[in-house]
């Protein structure tokens, strides 16, 4: 057993930044090391950014609703579509994964917390700092405007003149006419902000990998782990290896912009395509990083509501690993149009077709799980089935991109926009919402409203298909992406108008979801420990779980452990339901488990995160101001890390 006797000492000496102990109240959220609280904060932050990026998308759609519209200026339009993409990918997609995996993985493997609880808090606060840093452009010269993949030399050649920068006054750009300095500021925001966000993801990845490898409950072998945890494990490896690549690309971009180096400057003989290679070597694993949480959620939701074990568990695990490997060999299919030559094009075309195979294995496993099952079509299951269908459409249009001649035709058209919204909105967002309906009772202890949930599903499905389905046609009719307006005679006007209506249906549906969550937190009926009759360990503990997760560490003897605890083998070999309470170790909730040793809260993760954007903002100044600001940020961050390393546990601090 893990329990060790608590220290008997009680006297505490007040001290600057002494280790906080509170488990409730506002400060407990700022200092928490509890993976569940951090998961909830990740979720709330991701939903906040989801709404922000959604509003940006609505503004874009209003602009495009009618031809030759002047609702947004081209300059504002560029910032909005860039920030829509950057926010959705880096501040919604990745943190949603972090939220689900943080909350669920320790529970699913029977652990009390992650391996490095303070590092976990650090990840979250650094992610918040990165978000604030990115949007601080609103108070400066504007937001990044080079697209989410921000190709060089567009991102570097306009403006960077560090020598002139420190002396010249920061003149603002006129309408449509950008001064070099404003452009430089915007690109610096992009390069530094995403580096900070990358640090957060990297820390999460290290943390989760060690957690899965080292913190499993007795008997929880790798092949008994719930599939959500398996996918989170592979997800972490992809983050671990993808973030350094973009990190270095952004580091070099930062040097190009701020210190006038020549990494991506063709005028100095450098190769701007290097940026594209580095970006997509990160960027393609990144799309799997985005979709994996949804894969994990589907693999939990579908078996539960099909009343069957997951079809082909082993195949699912190995398909995930296969995607994890193959995901590294397909990046250049984003770059067919750069003229890499027929050999490279053929090779990447083939690997792109290959990677559809393990993805297809997953789709068939979900279908096989539903086949012959007693489907319970509640909101969570509807969203899960919706994900399978919509993601399959997106996957198929993805395979059409692997055909190089076809790709040449579609590059930079709305066909591409349609494709990646089918995989990311139809996959990630639908899947994540399925997960929200499924785990909401565990997190809050209350059920979400089913009728609102079903309304949420059908409106979202309709709105989604109107919006993005029609974009396929626009793309094939030649409408390029990222144009702020179009002439009336191109024949794109009617579809664009309908698409804008679809976007507002989506917005209404998301409002229903948020409303459902907020109202259910107070009005929802009580959930109980296991409202769905589920299979995995998180449903064994109370809802919401106590901060120590399990009063006693569960002993695991089977895959789908909880299901096996609820069933026994009858004489004829069939499984029969064990009456409630018949399980061999009943979980008790009433005792106060004072002897369980949990990680203490800490101020240092938050403090260490605060220094990072300060160092980032230093780059926007020059000369002595820059050095001093850099030093202040560095002292805060490294001082906090130093204090962190030597921080005593709460008992030792007496």
């Amino acid at each position: 057993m893990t329990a060790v006797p608590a220290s008997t000492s009680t006297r505490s000496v007040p001290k600057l930044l002494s280790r906080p102990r509170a488990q409730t109240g506002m400060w407990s959220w700022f200092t928490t090391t509890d993976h569940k609280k951090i998961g909830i904060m990740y979720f709330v932050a991701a939903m906040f950014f989801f709404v922000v990026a959604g509003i940006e998308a609505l503004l874009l759609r209003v602009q495009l609703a009618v031809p030759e519209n002047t609702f947004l200026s081209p300059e504002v339009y560029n910032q909005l579509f860039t920030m829509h993409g950057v926010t959705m990918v880096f501040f919604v997609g990745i943190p949603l994964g972090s939220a689900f995996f943080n909350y669920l993985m320790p529970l699913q493997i029977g652990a009390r917390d992650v391996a490095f609880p303070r590092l976990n808090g650090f990840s979250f606060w650094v992610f918040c700092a990165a978000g604030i840093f990115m949007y601080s452009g609103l108070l400066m010269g504007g937001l990044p405007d080079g697209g989410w993949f921000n190709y060089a030399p567009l991102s570097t050649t306009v403006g960077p003149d560090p020598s002139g920068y420190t002396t010249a006054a920061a003149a603002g750009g006129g309408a449509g006419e950008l001064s070099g300095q404003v452009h430089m500021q915007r690109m610096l925001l992009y390069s530094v902000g995403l580096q900070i966000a990358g640090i957060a993801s990297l820390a999460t990845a290290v943390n989760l990998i060690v957690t899965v490898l080292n913190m499993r409950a007795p008997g929880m072998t790798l092949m008994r782990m719930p599939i959500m945890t398996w996918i989170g494990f592979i997800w972490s490896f992809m983050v671990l290896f993808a973030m350094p690549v973009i990190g270095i690309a952004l580091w070099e971009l930062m040097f190009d912009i701020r210190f006038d180096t020549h990494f991506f400057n063709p005028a100095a003989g450098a190769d701007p395509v290097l940026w594209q290679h580095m970006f997509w070597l990160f960027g393609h694993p990144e799309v799997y990083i985005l979709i994996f949480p949804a894969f994990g959620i589907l693999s939990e939701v579908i078996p539960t509501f099909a009343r069957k074990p997951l079809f082909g568990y082993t195949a699912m695990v190995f398909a995930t690993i296969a995607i994890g490997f193959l995901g590294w060999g397909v990046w250049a299919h984003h770059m067919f149009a750069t003229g890499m030559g027929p050999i490279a094009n053929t090779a990447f075309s083939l690997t792109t077709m290959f990677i559809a195979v393990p993805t297809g294995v997953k789709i068939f496993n979900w279908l096989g799980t539903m086949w012959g099952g007693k489907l319970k079509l509640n909101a969570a299951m509807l969203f899960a089935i919706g994900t399978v269908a919509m993601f399959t459409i997106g996957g198929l249009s993805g395979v059409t991109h692997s055909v190089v001649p076809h790709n040449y035709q579609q590059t930079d058209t709305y066909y591409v926009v349609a494709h990646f919204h089918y995989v990311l909105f139809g996959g990630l967002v639908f899947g994540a919402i399925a997960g929200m309906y499924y785990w909401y009772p565990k997190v809050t202890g209350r059920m979400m409203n089913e009728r609102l949930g079903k309304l949420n599903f059908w409106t979202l499905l309709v709105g989604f298909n109107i919006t993005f389905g029609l974009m396929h046609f626009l793309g094939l009719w030649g409408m390029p992406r990222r144009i702020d307006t179009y002439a009336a005679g191109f024949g794109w006007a009617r579809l664009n108008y309908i698409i804008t209506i679809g976007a507002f249906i989506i917005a209404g549906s998301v409002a229903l979801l948020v409303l459902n969550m907020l109202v259910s937190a107070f009005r929802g009926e009580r959930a109980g420990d296991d409202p769905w009759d589920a299979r995995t360990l998180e449903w064994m503990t109370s809802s919401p779980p106590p901060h120590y997760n399990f009063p006693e560490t569960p002993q695991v003897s089977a895959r789908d452990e909880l299901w096996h605890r609820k069933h026994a083998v009858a004489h004829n070999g069939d499984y029969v339901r064990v009456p409630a309470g018949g399980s061999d170790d009943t979980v008790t909730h009433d005792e106060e488990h004072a002897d369980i040793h949990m990680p203490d809260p800490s101020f240092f993760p938050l403090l260490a995160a605060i220094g990072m954007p300060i160092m980032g903002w230093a780059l926007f100044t020059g000369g002595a101001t820059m050095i001093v600001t850099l030093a202040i940020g560095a002292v805060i961050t490294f001082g906090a890390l130093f204090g962190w390393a030597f921080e005593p546990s709460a008992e030792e601090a007496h």
Partner: protein
Amino acid sequence: MADASVTTAGASEQSHATSLGLSNEKLGMWTLIGSECLFFGALISAYLMYYGRYNGQPEISPALYDIPFTSVSTFVLLMSSLGMVLALAAIQRGDDRGFRIWILSTALLGSVFLAGQIYEFTWFVEEGMTLTTSPFTSAFYVLTGFHGMHVTVGVLMLVTLWARSMTGRLTSAHADVVENIGLYWHFVDIVWIVIFTAIYLIPYEQATG
């Protein structure tokens, strides 16, 4: 009382055995090192790609490299790994005095390497090779500078270990901390072997651009 252990993260606050029998901190360090390989890999790729792109200034080329000088500082850095091994062995057998000598020697050798790098950079700049000369020089400075940052962080950690030992707060009970920092230090040395080979030992070609 205030016998605070030098832990890098909170997991050692939980006292149960891990699934793999390896401490969380050590596994975390190995995971981080896996990630670091990609950081350096990306920088080395950029350097190799820009090898020979002199931006119309062919005189600023690898011909400036002083290979004997850098070989000596490479040797110094590699010897520091030996010091690290001896420091770990000393603290594992409870020899605090030996530990302090070797950990300080390791930090000193690391500092000598850094001093060599600063000297080399200064000399190059005086020769007209700056960060902004060409893609080749940008890649050179950012790669070696990134490595130098890693050595600096390592030296700071080693000096901290020495200071903790001097004040009696680092004993053989914390040998695992020394081992983890040692893993980092060895990685920084090993990656320098790759960088040194890529930068200094590949014969340079005449200017192409």
